């Protein structure tokens, strides 16, 4: 195992069941969160000894302990019946000290993983010439290693900063697109598969996509996915990575010829930058295993539904008109369109597509601002929001 440099870590995405492509990403983070909680039971850290023996009499009679001699004890209250070690304990390591009142100590002689049937324990003393009273034997304090339980499905997220291009814009980064044109209702809940480095995932769902653009700069985008299911490792991925399509020329949006329509109605004749974001509220559905508790049920969601889909488009420019302070009740409406173009080189094969995609937002002005600072100009900014679905 070694550290892989950035250029050796591929990011590949595909709509499930379809051909995908490598993403030219500046950064990518795959993180996974496991919601767990420790289990604790009543007096699970207290060892009560009701008999030194195998539990045939439940009559307490302390031995006179000898150094490094082992003794079998029965767990439970004085007089019995015995009780088992708590199943909240994952492990009691061999040698774990048990502290009784009056400075007396015993130790577990072997490592124990309680299974609900541990009535007997094997103990030893490091010193000799002493014994335990029946009362003292009811109060052995020890510190085990506790179990944890999973509280909810394990869920991950994939965050990507990347350069959009003609290949990825229409498919897996298109929240409102359809992988099957004939689908009804026309809401695509198809999952995304792919890999980051050598780690393969098969149940990713896009939740947000945003990008910005300003004059004389290329566009950079970011996207977030919810990731479920299993993450497997396939070392052969990096072997074929360098022959992939990633190193072919791509057409990348640029601020040079991209344009925003509809900004004049908002008092902005000279747009200096715009940003676009689309978010969708998604909820997974996990099914509960039935009578035989199938291990394959409940780990991966059966469905990740799409609920509210919201578009936000923000532009900045030299002015602000109208203002929603006096004219915004029930939402001042605005229509913005951003046509995304590459550099439209007529003499080259790359960056020569011209028009690439149109992003629209027909909603209400959510907020606006005016700002100025020293050595600067008065700037206006408007943000428009549309509930799309």
């Amino acid at each position, binding site marked *: 195992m070694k550290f892989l440099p950035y250029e050796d870590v591929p990011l590949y995405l595909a709509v499930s069941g379809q051909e995908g492509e490598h993403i030219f990403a500046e950064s990518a983070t795959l993180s996974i969160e496991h919601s767990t909680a420790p289990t604790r039971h009543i007096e699970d850290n207290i060892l009560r000894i009701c008999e030194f023996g195998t539990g045939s009499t439940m009559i307490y009679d302390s031995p006179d302990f000898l150094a490094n001699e082992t003794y079998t004890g029965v767990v439970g209250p004085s007089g019995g019946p015995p009780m088992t070690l708590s199943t909240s304990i994952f492990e009691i390591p061999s040698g774990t000290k048990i502290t009784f009142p009056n400075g007396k100590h015993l130790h577990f002689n072997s490592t124990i993983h309680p299974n609900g049937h541990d009535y007997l324990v094997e103990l030893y003393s490091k010193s000799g010439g002493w014994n335990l009273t029946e009362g003292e034997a009811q109060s052995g304090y020890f510190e085990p290693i506790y179990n944890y339980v999973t509280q*909810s499905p394990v869920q991950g997220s994939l965050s990507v900063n990347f350069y959009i291009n003609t290949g990825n814009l229409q498919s897996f980064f298109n929240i409102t697109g359809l992988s099957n044109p004939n689908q009804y209702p026309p809401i695509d809940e198809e999952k995304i598969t792919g890999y980051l480095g050598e780690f393969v995932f098969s149940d990713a769902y896009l939740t947000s996509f945003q990008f910005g653009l300003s004059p004389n700069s290329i566009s950079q985008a970011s996207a977030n996915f919810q990731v479920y299911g299993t993450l497997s490792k396939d070392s052969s991925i990096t072997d074929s990575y360098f022959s992939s399509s990633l190193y072919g020329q791509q057409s990348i949006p640029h601020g040079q010829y991209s344009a925003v329509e509809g900004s004049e109605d908002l008092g902005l004749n000279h747009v200096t930058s715009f940003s676009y974001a689309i978010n969708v509220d998604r909820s997974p559905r996990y*099914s*509960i295993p039935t009578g035989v508790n199938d291990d394959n049920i409940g780990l991966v969601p059966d469905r990740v539904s799409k609920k509210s889909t919201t578009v936000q488009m923000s532009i900045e420019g030299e002015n602000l008109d109208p203002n929603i302070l006096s004219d915004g009740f029930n939402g001042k409406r605005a229509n913005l369109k951003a046509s995304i173009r590459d550099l439209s080189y007529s003499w080259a094969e790359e960056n020569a597509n011209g028009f690439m995609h149109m992003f629209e937002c027909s909603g209400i002005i959510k907020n606006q601002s005016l700002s100025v600072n020293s050595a600067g100009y008065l700037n206006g900014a408007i943000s428009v929001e549309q509930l799309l679905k």
Partner: protein
Amino acid sequence: MDIKNTDASSIEVLPSFGATASFTSLSNSITYGDNHSQRHLRGINALKMSLSLNFNELTDIENQRLISFLQSHFIYELQNYDSAGFFDNKRITPFDYQPFYPYKQNKFNCIDFSQDRSYYNVNNVKATFTAVAPSILSSVESGPDHNPVIDGTIAVVDGANSTVGGNSLNLPANSVVYHSGDYRNATVDSDFNVAVDSAQALNISAPFGFPDGTISCNQTSLRNSIYIHNPNDCFYYPYAPIHEDGTLSVRMFDFRPSESVSISNSPKYRQSTIDDIYKKFSKYGFNPNLMNLRLSFNGRSDLEAKRILLFLEAHLGYKKFGFHLLRDYVGGTSDTTFHSPHRKSLSFYYCPEWQHTFNYKDNHTISASFIECIDY
């Protein structure tokens, strides 16, 4: 109004995690002067089960088929007479349903269900299923000691052929068997499914030794549960619990509640009713401080939850069992004072109702009411 009728003839979607099964027993109780009580169930159908299920994130079509199926049981049909002159189609016909782990398929009615449309093409359905006519006669579970009618025996010879007696045995791998007369136990390394009077090699792992000899085993082909699927996955100490005074006539509930427990005390007493102003309080009976506990067993594994549920079901909501609560709550038989329960070093309870929630995989919560009673 009915939802658009579909041809759904069963429930085609699985419920979401968080499903709950509730059990309640209906019993009559007689309480005597010293707080000794006796209970008996009101009938063979007196241990009831209901399921509270959430079917989340359903598409419109899934929702339509589910609601349509649930509604279909109530749709009126032209009355029809059978040959004996009775209506034969008036009854709400129960449907077969396979609940979540660890329960087995049973017949249910659904008389309470609701739909929540949370967004376009996103629906949540809540439904309560009630088990129809479950019979306590279906519960075949051994008591506190070897029962030759329903239990089996193994003439254990570790690593060699061991003969089964009494009844055929079905021990899955990792079952635990107990030596007679003490608490030494051993884990069975592989499945031990052997017909009565037959023998099979028995390989066991016993950290404290396991002498050859005849042992008792509950995991027989006769064992049966009202609600639990495959009860032979569960195993308990099969003998009468050993006590310093001998053995008990009830089984011990060997599961520890979760750490946070609330213990409320409501001592029993007598109060005079001479007039409204002056009241005189008097001590009452040998056993005034009997407890009424609400215990939670959180974060239990699949198998432990199943063992708890089978134990409670086997006691049918009225049979008593032994239980150690906290080390502070313990009396003594040699104590000369009148402890409550009177001169006992452990407590006995019955459990009239309990709930089981399947939180997530290998994570179950069981909450139960334990009512203390006297062991005589």
